[in-house]
């Protein structure tokens, strides 16, 4: 039932941690659609800056909102950004990599140069550039991470696709009359999937970090959408007076990024035989 690589991942503590936290994130996101302890947006001027208590486990913020409810509701934004930007990154990366690996020579080489140049555009700068043009929205964040990280995926996958494309079974598939696109989908992609999924996991981490940075700069989610990055940047102005409040959104972001990173690392170890043998060697 469970594929071999998944079992390998779950045999590692890092993999289990990553998988559990990611599952919790998704669960919290779904639950928060229907239920949060309190209304995450309900401000109460008489309940400002309360410390943690039974009624408000994480305390309240400067307008009297319940921080726990807000953090829970913001999980949706995180999961959305992580998932959608990974999808965009996957598409951008795959299409670029496939063309750069298999296209005709006059397309391949300029594209390789273009990928190298695009890698020099950090995600944050792409996002700022897009915000200057399109205005700030979650879509801008998703597009920026998708493009910025997609290029990275393209660079990593390009070599991998070239390697697989030379394999005997791919030649055999082509020789027996299978079209190039079908060959790519049926025979090449499944064989680069491990490399690819590792990159996607890492891109989810980058997405969460970028959303936090961009929300802080004012380019992230609109105020109507709860977001950890926005909460963190709202609260950091008062950090010397109410130091505990920043910890919750800060920890939420850190834990999620850590989970995506650890899951990606465990996956890489599980799927890369060279890394698997390292344990034996290094002893």
């Amino acid at each position, binding site marked *: 039932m469970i594929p071999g690589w998944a079992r390998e991942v779950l045999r590692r503590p890092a993999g289990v941690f990553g998988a559990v936290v990611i599952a919790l994130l998704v669960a919290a996101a779904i639950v928060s659609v229907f239920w949060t302890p309190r209304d995450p947006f309900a401000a109460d001027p008489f309940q400002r800056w309360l410390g943690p208590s039974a009624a408000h486990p994480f305390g309240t913020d400067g307008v009297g909102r319940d921080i726990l409810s807000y953090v829970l509701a913001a999980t949706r934004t995180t999961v959305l950004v992580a998932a959608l930007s990974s999808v965009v990154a996957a598409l951008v990366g795959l299409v670029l990599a496939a063309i750069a690996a298999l296209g005709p020579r006059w397309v391949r080489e300029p594209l390789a140069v273009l990928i190298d140049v695009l890698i020099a555009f950090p995600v944050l700068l792409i996002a700022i550039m897009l915000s200057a043009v399109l205005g700030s929205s979650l879509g801008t964040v998703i597009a920026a991470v998708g493009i910025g990280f997609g290029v990275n995926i393209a660079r990593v996958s390009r070599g991998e696709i070239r390697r697989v494309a030379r394999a005997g079974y791919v030649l055999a598939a082509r020789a027996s009359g299978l079209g190039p696109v079908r060959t790519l989908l049926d025979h090449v992609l499944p064989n680069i999937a491990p490399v690819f999924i590792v990159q996607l996991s890492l891109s989810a981490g980058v997405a969460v970090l970028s959303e936090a940075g961009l929300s802080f700069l004012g380019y992230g989610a609109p105020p109507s959408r709860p977001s950890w990055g926005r909460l963190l940047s709202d609260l950091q102005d008062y950090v010397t007076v109410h130091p505990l409040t920043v910890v919750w959104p800060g920890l939420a972001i850190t834990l999620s*990024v850590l989970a995506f990173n650890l899951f990606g690392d465990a996956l890489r170890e599980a799927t890369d035989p060279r890394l698997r043998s390292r344990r034996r060697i290094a002893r």
Partner: protein
Amino acid sequence: MLRFVATRLVLLVVGLLVAAALIFLTLRVLPGDVAQVIGGTRASPEQVARIRTELGLDEPIPLQFLDWIGGVLRGDLGRSLVTGTPVAVELGAKLAVTLPLAGLSLLIGLLGIPLGVLSAVLYRRAGGFLIAAAAQAIAAVPVVFAGVLLVLLLGAWLRLLPVQGFPLDGWQEPGRALASLVLPALTIGIVEGAVVLRFTRSATLEALGQDHVRTAAAKGMTRTRALLTHGLPGVLLSVIAVIGLEIAALLVGAVVVESLFQLPGVGRMLVTDVANRDLVKVQSELLVLTGLVLVVGAVVDVLHRLLDPRLRERA
């Protein structure tokens, strides 16, 4: 070698041109009329038209692009659409904050190299595990959160360092200027150092498994000595390549950190100008930042090639 440098130089120039074109084109699809924004809501259509002609916004886009690139090559980055001051002068002043900030962060981040080697040598021991786990966790901390925690710890509670701002007279008093860069640089440096540490650690672990290192150990060297004399040179060389990428990350980290600590650097300038839709400044700032990343990348490539005999032989 010379051939390699020449090819790399050509690639760099092509890269810079492509980057400039991308920035320019992206910003030109801006919805909304820049001239209208400058003129304000009460500007008459004639005034708006005059502003358009003044800025050359009516010229065809390729011509505008060539104008801009020509200016950049002469060191003329244009004038701010909002204040009318030359962009190059302001940018120079801001770089005097951002570059030292990035340099200081890099110095702190480089501490990740010895710590990474140490954690690999201590593989499967408590110390090594702790270092690696800490690095893994720190690499996941958003820069804003790291900055806030450092402000609390070193600024507010221990009162060791100035928390925000930069002396108005710039580097007139180098001590004070430097002190105000320490917390921001620590913020970026620690987070980026964690990334460097993780990479160094895995490169060192790989080196420990290499045949020549194992042979040296088998012939009677201790494993650590074999690593230091035979494995480490290779490790350091592959770390160089990562440092290039890290410098790019440092410059980006600076954008966030400058806003957090109210430092008058290029990053904060960029954020302000995007808000003001000061197109001329935004495009030059983006070009300078990506240009820096591309140039650093090229320099690191050449250095790597120069120092790493493995790459030279393959050529």
